[in-house]
């Protein structure tokens, strides 16, 4: 790892690729290897975790929104037996709208605090996307750790196939986090961010939500993993496609 040193007086800054070994006049923004890229993404992630713990805005917004909707839904239909398709849809509606209330913070915060330019200078677009994506994924998974058991308890859910249920939740959240992160980057540069975030995300996420609801429904009714295999495949491939598309387009949003 090259050591960062201040330039000696009178010495011209060298191009990084022809610099003497061990001395880097300035750090290149473009990572040289995948490992370095991941390390930088991890640094962005750590930064986001730290600043989130200072305000706890996103965590509070998501958690309170989730619990509020859950209680509202529970009051309305918890006592009545509702069919499995309705239960699966309600679960994903709660997850989707809770996600929409907090996942845009990663980028909106940078714009509001006017730190986006500094971050643009400090890290490559890929590292920023990676770090922010990881942060949103962690946020979403911790939300689900709380919300899913609560939902199961309050709505008297009988889950027949837990492996399928967990796989569907994992793949669904990954796709949700990927899409929401890129849309958050777009929204952070627009006006009326809050409303726009849900509006822009919904049509793009619809195929994913349909697959997730269908897979959850299969997990409620059948113990076999194969019952929801097709939906699981859809979720995984959709997440993959969105991830690749976001790698391609993120540069154009971020460096704008």
């Amino acid at each position: 790892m090259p050591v960062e040193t201040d330039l000696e007086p009178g010495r011209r800054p060298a191009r990084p690729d022809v610099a003497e070994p061990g001395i880097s006049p300035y750090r290149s923004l473009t990572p040289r290897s995948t490992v370095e890229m991941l390390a930088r993404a991890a640094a962005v992630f750590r930064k986001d975790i730290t600043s989130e713990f200072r305000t706890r805005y996103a965590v509070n917004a998501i958690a309170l929104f989730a619990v509020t909707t859950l209680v509202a839904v529970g009051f309305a239909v918890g006592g009545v037996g509702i069919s499995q398709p309705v239960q699966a849809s309600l679960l994903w509606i709660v997850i989707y709208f809770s996600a929409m209330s907090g996942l845009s913070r990663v980028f909106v915060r940078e714009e509001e605090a006017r730190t986006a330019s500094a971050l643009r200078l400090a890290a490559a677009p890929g590292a920023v996307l990676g770090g922010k994506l990881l942060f949103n994924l962690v946020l979403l998974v911790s939300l689900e750790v709380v919300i899913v058991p609560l939902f199961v308890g309050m709505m008297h859910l009988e889950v027949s196939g837990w492996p399928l249920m967990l796989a569907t939740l994992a793949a669904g959240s990954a796709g949700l986090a990927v899409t929401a992160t890129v849309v958050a980057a777009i929204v952070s540069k627009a006006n009326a961010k809050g409303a726009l975030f849900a509006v822009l995300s919904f049509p793009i996420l619809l195929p994913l939500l349909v697959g997730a609801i269908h897979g959850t429904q299969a997990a409620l009714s059948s113990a076999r993993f194969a019952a929801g295999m097709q939906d699981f495949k859809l979720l995984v491939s959709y997440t993959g496609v969105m991830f690749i598309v976001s790698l391609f387009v993120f540069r154009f949003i971020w460096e704008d």
Partner: protein
Amino acid sequence: MFLKILLGIWMAGVIVAAFLVTPPGGRDFLDPDSARIIIFHVPNAVVAVTAFFVAMLYAVKYLRGRDLRDDAKSAISAELGLVFAALAIVTGSLFARMQWGSWWNWDPRETGMVVLLLVYAAYFALRSAVDGADRRASLSAVYGIMAIAPMLFLTLVLPRVVFSLHPPTAVAYPKAQRLVLVPAMLGFLGLYLWLFRIRTAVAEVRLKLKRY
């Protein structure tokens, strides 16, 4: 000018032929006359998807060349796509009421069309919410490109996994029907191109005026 008049006569001919030349549908149809709607329904749907595809191509072109004229073309094509998609949905819904007894059946193709409508409605919501022409252009171009993913899943994957009331795309229409359907396709495509050229000319003049 000459092309415009030709297009007008052509479309008038298509409309007349739809009722006089097209044979009524077979015994599968509750009302055989209702089958004639494909002369209007299918071209609208095809042109709508083509227009969205063109919008996407111009979005890519904008991101490569940063020419605001490409952004304007992308937006115009998306706008026209919305109009044709709405017409395809309305004609399809009319036929669904006649044939299947309900205005709306949550058929995968119906759903796909509505999601496309939602995607591009969101696209225009985004455009109206961004200040600055360059920023608006690049953000909406990115969103237009991201819309490929749902478009592919809804048009290629979903109709093959879920049962659809629609005939498969490769269905061979009867020859007498094709006799009108193909000219109708060309007519609607011409209509799209004509509208596209008018709007583009206006947008280019606007961009030039802004520069001075």
